[in-house]
């Protein structure tokens, strides 16, 4: 493929991703822009209502804002991300080996190749959990706010023994750490939720999940089954991550097995 052709191909794919990522927010950006421009012509009440409506999710699954960062930084970041991916795509597409190999293929194979690559790259830039299996790869980027914290799930058995539960060992079909993350996310949501009705629904789901974990454990330990599961947090400040003595634990709640 020619230099221009390679460049156009690489940029087109990443731009498609950028456009799809930005599309759900364009309406909101336009409305914010309109509010800024027309401030003098807008009565205070209308403006307030609009601000309230902007703070709500306008589309299902679209967060009320891109992130906590200023829009300028965000646009710069998105542009850089797209260019970094496009540059590597360009290097690949420009290669004589790749161009010759794919150039020799029948049209249907070329369509399949381009289709898969496009879905993958668009998924990188504009994907979400909903676009599985074409996902964004954003792991281990940035530092989460607050001190490192982990949730512990300890079962208390009929004989009074405390057993630290390993969710992966209990339900290996879900894959490593997946069940552990589900339980941790539920616990974190419960801790942070202030609205009573939402908290009740979160609590019901959390209790049902923990009881399921307990049941699965008990299937294999009929001689000494669990009576309840205690949930606690372990925290430390980020500069003392090393010694077990520095870890501070707090019991949050316990759930009885039925």
């Amino acid at each position, binding site marked *: 493929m020619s230099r221009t052709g390679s460049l156009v191909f690489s940029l087109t794919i990443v731009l498609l991703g950028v456009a799809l990522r930005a599309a759900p927010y364009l309406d909101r950006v336009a409305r914010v822009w309109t509010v800024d421009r027309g401030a003098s012509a807008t009565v205070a009440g209308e403006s307030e209502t609009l601000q309230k409506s902007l703070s709500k999710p306008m589309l299902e699954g679209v967060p009320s804002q891109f992130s906590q960062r200023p829009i300028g930084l965000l646009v710069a970041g*998105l542009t*850089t*991300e797209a260019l*970094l*991916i496009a540059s*590597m*795509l360009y*290097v*690949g597409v420009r290669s*004589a*080996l790749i161009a*010759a190999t*794919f150039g*020799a*293929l029948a049209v249907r*194979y070329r369509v*399949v*190749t381009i289709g*898969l*690559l496009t879905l*993958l*790259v668009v998924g*990188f830039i504009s994907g979400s*959990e909903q*676009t*599985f*299996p074409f*996902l964004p*790869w*954003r792991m*281990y*980027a*940035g*530092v989460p706010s607050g001190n*490192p*914290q*982990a949730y512990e799930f300890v079962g208390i058995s009929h004989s009074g023994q405390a057993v630290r539960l390993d969710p992966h060992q209990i*339900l*290996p*079909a*879900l*894959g*490593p*750490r*997946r069940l552990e*993350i*589900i339980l941790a996310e539920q616990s974190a949501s419960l801790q942070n939720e202030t609205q009573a009705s939402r908290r009740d629904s979160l609590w019901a*789901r959390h209790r*049902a*999940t923990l009881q*399921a974990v307990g049941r*699965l454990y008990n299937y294999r330990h009929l001689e000494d089954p669990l009576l309840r599961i205690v949930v606690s947090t*372990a*925290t430390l400040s*980020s500069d003392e*991550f*090393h*010694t*077990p003595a520095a*870890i501070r634990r707090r019991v949050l709640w316990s759930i009885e097995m039925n």
Partner: protein
Amino acid sequence: MEQQAGTDSWISSGGLRCVESQARVGAQTLGFMRAWIFGIWLCKVATAPFFLLAELPVSIFEPPVFMRMAPTEAWTWLLRPDVLTGFQILLCTCVALTALGLRPYRPIAATTSILLTFHQGLIRSFGHINHPEIPLLLATYVLAMFPAADGFTWRTRRQALQPSSLYVAPILLIAALLLLTYTAAAAYRMAHHGLATLAGEPLMWTIAQHSLADEHSLIVIFIHHHSTVAQLLRCSVPTVTVFEWTAPLALVSRRFRWLWLGFVFMFHIVTWLVIDVFFWESLLLAIAILPALDRVTAILPP
């Protein structure tokens, strides 16, 4: 001029007469990749009792978009232990048939890929979407669409071989899909969190969190008692990120391919030891696909 000279020398050395043997090498290599990838899937799918998923509460079941077309009653029926066991047996059979390269290959492989996607979607319907199996899953799509059962099959048969590019292209494509996932992770990290990445802060935070999950981890205690190691880990983050970003260069440069293979092996082992994150599926794919790529590109004319 240089390329023309290379082609002339290839022709004069009898290269054109070797077209069939090149195609055979390509078919064998692609067939090996088929057996390798579906073999890994067979180990994954067969070893974990799937029926236990029926114990999880339906209230935390949220299927991804492509699975939402099914009505609620269908899920209630599917999430029963006997149905889940039946599904697991069906999936294992399809994966085994595909790994062996039995005929008719395309329909079997396509069905297997669809069932694997459904299997992975079902697992991810319970609360959390993550990445470890994604490159391996995407590789099955490529294997289902290209003629991956012309070599390295259970029963050897006289098979009319296709042009060698049809065997080289899927190997290149699987390698590209795998390598681009590393590029994407690095690109996001550099573009959105460049300074924190340079300072190695996310890694230190993650190590600290891992020390909570496994407070008696010898590695974490070792890192604490050897501040030089901690500094080395912190300083390695920018280098690792650059290696991740430049991963697709392994497609085009033979020297970089082997260097990168060494890097990715160390990378996955260290992340496993230090933060207990082990993408063994990606590692197994990398250690097979990059040498396979090396093999098939060596048989191509200059």
